[in-house]
């Protein structure tokens, strides 16, 4: 029975999505219930799997032979190793809490059936990534996750910005996925397998070289897109146009960490090349600081959190690059809890303030939404890595991994300083002082369905540091500890609060004005200028080619030729059947004569 549990976990949400889409769409209450119950079922299944008796080992599950062609083999199967089991429980658990929260958050939305169908589709595809036993089915679910992200960002179809953000997210992810698929093809060509379970034995004795480096970097490209790392990070802040539960589940807790999960899955390949590992580590290290700086000058509560998400994922990416996947998974877990909590709390604030997202227009929420502000503070402590909240333990284990790389250690610790800075800035501006407008003055807590998930996540954020996450990896990797990284990072994180407190206590406008941070280092403008304009002019050129050469010359030209020859040949036709017969007979005589001459007929 347990052998089939992964399939149950996987297909319950899909069943919910399909049945809502085709049958239950007109009945929002039933749709909501079906989707939530399916997600809860998946969660229970994942828990059963997580605590099942087979311990550290890989659970044997039946697999269907799927693609077999010219030595290429891909099964449709499940790899239920401890990593996948832990991740599945995490994903379905957080997803269930977000389902509960969404029930209240979207209470008045007429198209919430569609929302829950899309959410179920997302849960299915995300669990597909987690449980996939080979790169091909992972890639398919990877794309499905992209589709559901696209659908959910653009859920409010009447907002043009939401549609634009959805398109951007989808297109930017395409760029990363292109590298990913090249990496998959390369892995198959070089190692002869796409199954994760076969990778460790196939890479044994493989000489490092440009080929393994290229494959590793190709796979990392997929992570760049999905986990929104530089230079493909631009889509994640814009994806905040979607409903807040979506930002919480997809764009903070689960989907964006799929890239990190994938890197851990293909780690045997990545470890073949030191170049690949160092590239990953440095991209991650750079990306811890870069968005943290941008976040210091943003004013939209969700965008600030989005930039902090970029920074936190970068910590995980860096940990993978430094060969510490245990730390990465550890931080992934704690981050899933506290970042989901922060987003849900932000959603509660936005909900309470009548869809106001600008922190400068809030203020004074401490008195009106005490519970939300409390859990927000807790999440902030976790995010900044202040002991004893969970984030401290996981960040500490990542800092310990940087012990031999002072450059990376420096980058990521300074990022911790700025993280504390912008988080306290946001809290002081949004939650303290006087209310800046009527919406903030009449802010109120949401319903019990919004409070309960936040309370559970707050508890988890508090204690997740105690989870034996290293069991995810079956005890293959050991976490290191180093005293100096611990103390320096902690001091820097605490130091970040000081300037924020001095600058933003009772501030009614931003005392700082750093335009290149406010404008996100002009990356969007750069893409607009260089990439979009290049693409536009290329498109114009292609349009001119199509208009003049293809349509004008080839298509219209061939039409003119056909019509002219038809007009000419028409004159030959006289309509006299006997003339045709005579010509036919002459032709036959000519043919016979010609054949006789050629000696074919004797």
């Amino acid at each position, binding site marked *: 029975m347990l052998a089939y549990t992964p399939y149950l976990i996987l297909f319950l949400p899909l069943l919910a999505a399909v049945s809502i889409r085709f049958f239950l769409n007109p009945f929002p209450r039933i749709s909501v219930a079906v989707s939530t119950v399916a997600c809860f079922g998946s969660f229970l299944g994942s828990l059963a799997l997580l605590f099942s008796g087979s311990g550290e080992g890989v659970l044997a599950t039946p697999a269907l032979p799927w693609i077999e062609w010219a030595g290429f083999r891909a099964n449709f199967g499940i790899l239920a190793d401890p990593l996948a089991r832990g991740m599945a429980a995490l994903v379905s658990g957080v997803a269930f809490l977000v389902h509960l929260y969404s029930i209240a958050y979207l209470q008045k939305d007429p198209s919430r059936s569609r929302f829950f169908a899309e959410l179920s589709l997302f849960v299915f595809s995300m669990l597909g990534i987690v449980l996939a036993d080979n790169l091909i089915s992972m890639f398919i679910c990877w794309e499905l996750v992209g589709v559901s992200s696209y659908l959910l960002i653009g859920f409010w179809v009447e907002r043009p910005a939401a549609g634009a953000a959805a398109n951007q997210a989808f297109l930017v992810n395409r760029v990363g996925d292109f590298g990913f698929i090249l990496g998959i093809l390369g892995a198959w060509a070089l190692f002869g397998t796409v199954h994760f379970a076969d990778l460790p034995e196939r890479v044994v004795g493989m000489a490092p070289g440009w080929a393994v480096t290229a494959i590793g970097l190709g796979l990392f490209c997929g992570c760049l897109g999905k986990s929104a790392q530089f230079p493909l990070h631009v889509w994640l802040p814009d994806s905040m146009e979607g409903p807040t539960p979506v930002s919480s589940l997809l764009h903070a807790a689960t989907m964006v960490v799929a890239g990190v999960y994938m890197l851990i899955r293909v780690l045997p390949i990545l470890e073949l090349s030191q170049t690949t590992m160092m590239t990953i580590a440095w991209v991650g290290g750079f990306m811890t600081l870069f968005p943290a700086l941008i976040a210091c000058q943003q004013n939209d509560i969700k965008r600030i959190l989005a930039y902090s998400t970029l920074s936190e994922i970068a910590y995980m990416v860096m940990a993978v690059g430094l060969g510490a996947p245990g730390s990465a998974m550890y931080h992934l877990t704690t981050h899933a809890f506290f970042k989901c909590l922060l987003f849900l709390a932000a959603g509660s604030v936005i909900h309470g303030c009548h869809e106001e997202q600008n922190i400068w227009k809030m203020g004074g929420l401490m008195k009106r939404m005490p519970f939300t502000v409390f859990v927000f503070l807790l999440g902030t402590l976790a995010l900044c890595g202040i002991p004893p909240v969970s984030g401290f333990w996981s960040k500490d284990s990542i800092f310990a991994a940087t012990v031999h790389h002072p450059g990376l250690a420096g980058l990521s610790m300074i990022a911790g300083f700025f993280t504390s800075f912008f988080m306290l800035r946001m809290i002081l501006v949004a939650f303290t002082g006087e209310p800046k407008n009527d919406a903030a003055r009449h802010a109120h807590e949401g319903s019990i369905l919004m409070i309960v998930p936040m309370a559970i996540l707050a508890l988890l954020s508090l204690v997740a540091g105690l989870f034996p996450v290293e069991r995810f990896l079956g005890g293959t990797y050991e976490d290191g500890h180093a005293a100096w990284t611990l103390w320096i990072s902690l001091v820097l994180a605490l130091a970040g609060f000081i300037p924020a407190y001095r600058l933003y206590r009772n501030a009614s406008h931003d005392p700082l004005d750093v335009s290149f941070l406010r404008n996100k280092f002009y990356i969007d403008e750069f893409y607009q200028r260089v990439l979009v304009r290049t693409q536009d002019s290329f498109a114009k050129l292609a349009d001119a080619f199509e208009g003049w050469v293809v349509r004008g010359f080839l298509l219209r030209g061939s039409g003119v030729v056909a019509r002219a020859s038809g007009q000419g040949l*028409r004159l030959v*036709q*006289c*309509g*006299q*059947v*006997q003339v045709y*017969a*005579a010509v036919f*007979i002459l032709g036959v005589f000519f043919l016979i004569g010609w054949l006789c001459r050629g000696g074919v007929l004797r």
Partner: protein
Amino acid sequence: MNFGEITLGHYLALSSLLFLIGLAGVILRRSLLIIMMSLELLLNAANLALVAVGRFQGLPDPQVAVFFVITVAAAEVSLGLAILVAIFRIRKTTAADQLASLRF
């Protein structure tokens, strides 16, 4: 006059003659009825050649085939004549040179 024994050549000559007469009829005559009769001549010229060759080579197959040709030809003629009658009813003529509406 003694033409001696009748040989395959005689039959083939007769067949060719019939074929040429039929051909001339098809090409030169104006009446559709005559053209159809000429077509029958063409057909039977071919039949004659076939059966003669079969007879002189001692092969049964061509002779059997001719029966089939005759049978099918009978069906074809009945169909052709029906079309002819239909054309005459509509166009009030059976002159081939006046039935030129397939021309542009």
